[in-house]
């Protein structure tokens, strides 16, 4: 299968195999107007299998959200068919309205407040700001 390179936009490489759809969903990309390519289970020397996302004419993506969903991914910015920047991701220290608190006893279940989570450790576990419930980012 051949998917052509993009001249301008963002490529998200090294996405964990099978997570491409989830990443797209979290990034809230406008698939109605932008050209989007999602390649799943691409052979990779380093990872065995990986997903790749190509977003044509998109200038930036929310790195916080992306770091949360798949912190091992790499974001590559393309201008005039050249790589201008590669960004290695890490877990964001704080996220707002990305993870939802599932604790039925949490105040977020009754009050209109943002769902705020703070990074709890190096393994990508997050703590709800209100009830301290701990969740693993990629299991939410």
């Amino acid at each position, binding site marked *: 299968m051949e998917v052509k390179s993009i001249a301008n936009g963002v490529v998200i490489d090294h996405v964990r195999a099978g997570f491409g759809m989830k990443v797209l969903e979290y990034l809230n990309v406008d698939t109605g107007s932008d050209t989007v390519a999602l390649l799943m289970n691409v052979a990779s020397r380093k990872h065995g299998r990986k997903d790749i996302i190509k977003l044509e004419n998109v200038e930036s993506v929310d790195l916080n959200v992306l770091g949360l969903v798949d912190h091992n991914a790499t974001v590559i910015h393309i201008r005039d068919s050249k790589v201008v920047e590669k960004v290695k991701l890490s877990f964001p220290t704080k996220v707002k309205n990305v993870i939802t608190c599932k*604790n*039925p*006893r*949490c*105040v*977020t*279940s*009754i*009050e*209109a*407040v943002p769902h705020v989570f703070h990074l*709890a*450790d190096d393994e990508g576990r997050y*703590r*709800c*700001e*209100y*009830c*301290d*419930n*701990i969740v693993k980012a990629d299991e939410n």
Partner: protein
Amino acid sequence: MELKGRHLIEPSDLTVEEMEGLFDEAERIVANPESYAEVCKGKLLATLFYEPSTRTRFSFEAAMLRLGGKVIGFSEPNSSAVAKGESIADTIRTVECYADIAVMRHPKEGSVLVASRQSDMPVINAGDGGHHHPTQTLTDLLTIRLEKGGFDGITVGLCGDLKFGRTVHSLIQALTRYTGVRFIMISPQELSVPEYVREKIRKSGMEFEETHDLRQSLPKLDVLYMTRVQRERFFNEEDYIRLKDRYILDAGKLKDAKPDLMVLHPLPRVNEIAVDVDSDPRAHYFRQAKNGMYVRMALLMALLGVKGE
């Protein structure tokens, strides 16, 4: 110590020095209550209790009245605008128009934090679901300090419902800031401490063990903190019935304990401490309830910026 205008949502909102300052003030009040009888004259406390309470509400109300202040509030949300569906944020904004300080209990975890963020008036957490109960912790610590002189190096057993027991979570959080405290957490698997509490102890570097066996743990303890399995925290009545009488401390079991053990309980108790323990000098839970009023007097004064005579 400058606590004027601050909120108290969880024990870590206070430094160790600030807590010790409150205990010092509480001890001065115990020694000379008359000289504090009018220090809060003209001040108004609002008590917002969305969940039932006897000790905490009465002790806050008694504390304010004994300081010469006045009290307004509700102890039954159905008798307030809450019954009409008012949000926590709107309720606290309204109460702020009338009162100088508020104390709030609510079944949802994090609810008092949400209220405090909408309020310039100090807001005190009197229990938010199964999360925290910092003024019970001040009560517990004052009781231990009066008896043991301090907290460094003590072994504390916590027994019963450690999952939903907010007093347990707050007490552990506060004690991890002293030196060499050892925790023995005794509970059925289903009611063990939440991961964030375990994490807090790990980060402090203190020792802890988790066990199901109260009898074996008893001889090692300097303090035994018993808790009630709380029916109101269960979604399933069968689980409550299965777990409620798992641990019962009685005079027989206490024979294996140290002679200077302190048995504490935030109260109310149901069956977890047999009445034959009440006459044992190691039972401190009713004295603990009295200390709660004194330390709440010290807290109200500090948050209102009122000085003693």
